[in-house]
């Protein structure tokens, strides 16, 4: 924790974030271009699903990010509740809308894929339902953040909510194993090695890297904005109180 607390100093963090941000943006654009090229042109279509399987290159990384962002949010919330690390509040708050956007993207692309493959936009299957609940949890979290005038209260209340809602993440991950559902079970990360062909695995992993870099990029922007916003607020308060 001693190392983490070094970055509790917002000025030091701002400098670090300013350094990370262009790198994350660069990795995002390069890996997105490479991943899209490999996924859409250079890789074969699926032998059963044909070309529409390519939507996987967006859908799967988005779904991974949806769970990843919630996990980050829950960890940051735990850190802020336990160690009162000032930046973890900011990180959790900044992560929520990004995670919600990824969740929505995963649901939307899944639905677009489901129409030709399953013949329906939506099924009430365990994986889909639990991801929908995840979207509701993100929305509830953001609503709770906005419901208080006092920012520290908002941060604490929503940190508790994020931790309570975390029970949903393992349910999403294992829903395809626990219930016999329409959604296909895991094929990339599983016992006994990946069952996906390398020609499809590589574009998928590169797209996952692109999404992760995008997350880091936007997170840095949002956290910097919030820290600067805090500074401005404190300066205004000082002006008002004549300090």
């Amino acid at each position, binding site marked *: 924790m001693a190392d983490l607390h070094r970055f509790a100093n917002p000025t030091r963090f701002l400098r670090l974030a300013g350094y990370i941000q262009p790198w994350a943006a660069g990795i995002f654009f390069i890996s997105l271009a490479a991943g899209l090229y490999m996924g859409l042109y250079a890789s074969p279509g699926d032998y059963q699903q044909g070309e529409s399987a390519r939507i996987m290159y967006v859908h799967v990384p988005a779904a991974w990010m949806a769970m990843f962002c919630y996990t980050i949010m829950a960890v940051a919330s735990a850190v802020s509740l336990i160690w009162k690390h000032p930046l973890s509040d900011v990180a959790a708050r900044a992560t929520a809308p990004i995670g919600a956007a990824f969740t929505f993207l995963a649901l939307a692309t899944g639905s677009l894929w489901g129409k030709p493959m399953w013949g329906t936009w939506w099924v009430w299957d365990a994986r889909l339902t639990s991801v929908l609940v995840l979207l509701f*949890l993100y*929305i*509830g979290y953001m609503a*709770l953040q906005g*419901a*208080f005038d006092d920012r520290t209260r908002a941060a604490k*209340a929503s940190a*508790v*909510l994020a931790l*309570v809602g975390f029970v949903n993440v393992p349910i999403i991950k294992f829903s395809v194993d626990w219930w016999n559902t329409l959604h296909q079970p895991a094929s990339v990360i599983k016992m006994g090695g990946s069952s996906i062909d390398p020609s499809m695995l590589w574009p998928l992993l590169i797209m996952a890297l692109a999404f992760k870099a995008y997350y880091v990029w936007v997170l840095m922007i949002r956290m910097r904005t919030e820290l600067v916003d805090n500074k401005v607020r404190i300066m205004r308060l000082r002006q008002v109180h004549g300090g």
Partner: protein
Amino acid sequence: MGQFIFLIRRDLSLAFRQGMDSVMVVVFFVIAVVLFPFGVGPEPGVLERISAGVIWVAALLAAMLSLERLFQTDYEDGSLELLALSSLPMEVTVLAKVVAHWITTGLPLIVAAPVLAVLMQMDAGGFGVLILALLLGTPSLSLIGAVGAALILGSRRGGVLLSLLVLPLYIPVLIFGVSAVDGAIGGYEYQAQLMILGGFFAGSLALAPFAGAAGLRQSLE
């Protein structure tokens, strides 16, 4: 233990003296269910098919309606601060409040449910399981709801916000509650669903008081 029971008795006598709260919850429950035959038409086949789901959803909403006041009045008149100062751990305070909430809302809902099941043309084979499922499910609703009720203290638009926070977390209870009753009506296995409901109850009983207490503490800072 003495303090715990005293707190439950205090909340119960407050609820009974102040009046109509738990009666209102049951009336809402009944009206919400009665709306469905008007909405989907009175054919017995249709009503029977949806009866378990409608009763569960209405019970969920009714339990949620009364949650807003679980800590709100104590928060506003300052007795919550006194409770925080007392020797009773905050977790036990939350548990006592939840028990009182369940007695004043969960229990009346369970009593009213068979009558509504008759109105919804439910097969008589489902009654016992409906009551059993509600007995196992409604305590979880009160427990999970207490976390939400603690988090919204002092916020704007608390009631609407509460539904947004709590309803997604109610979905698992709803799924297994309905499938237990449907299983019993259809003549399938329903013990597994009841056990999962019991598992939810045990899990939320162990965890929700801590989350609720964390929520209350931050509201008092």
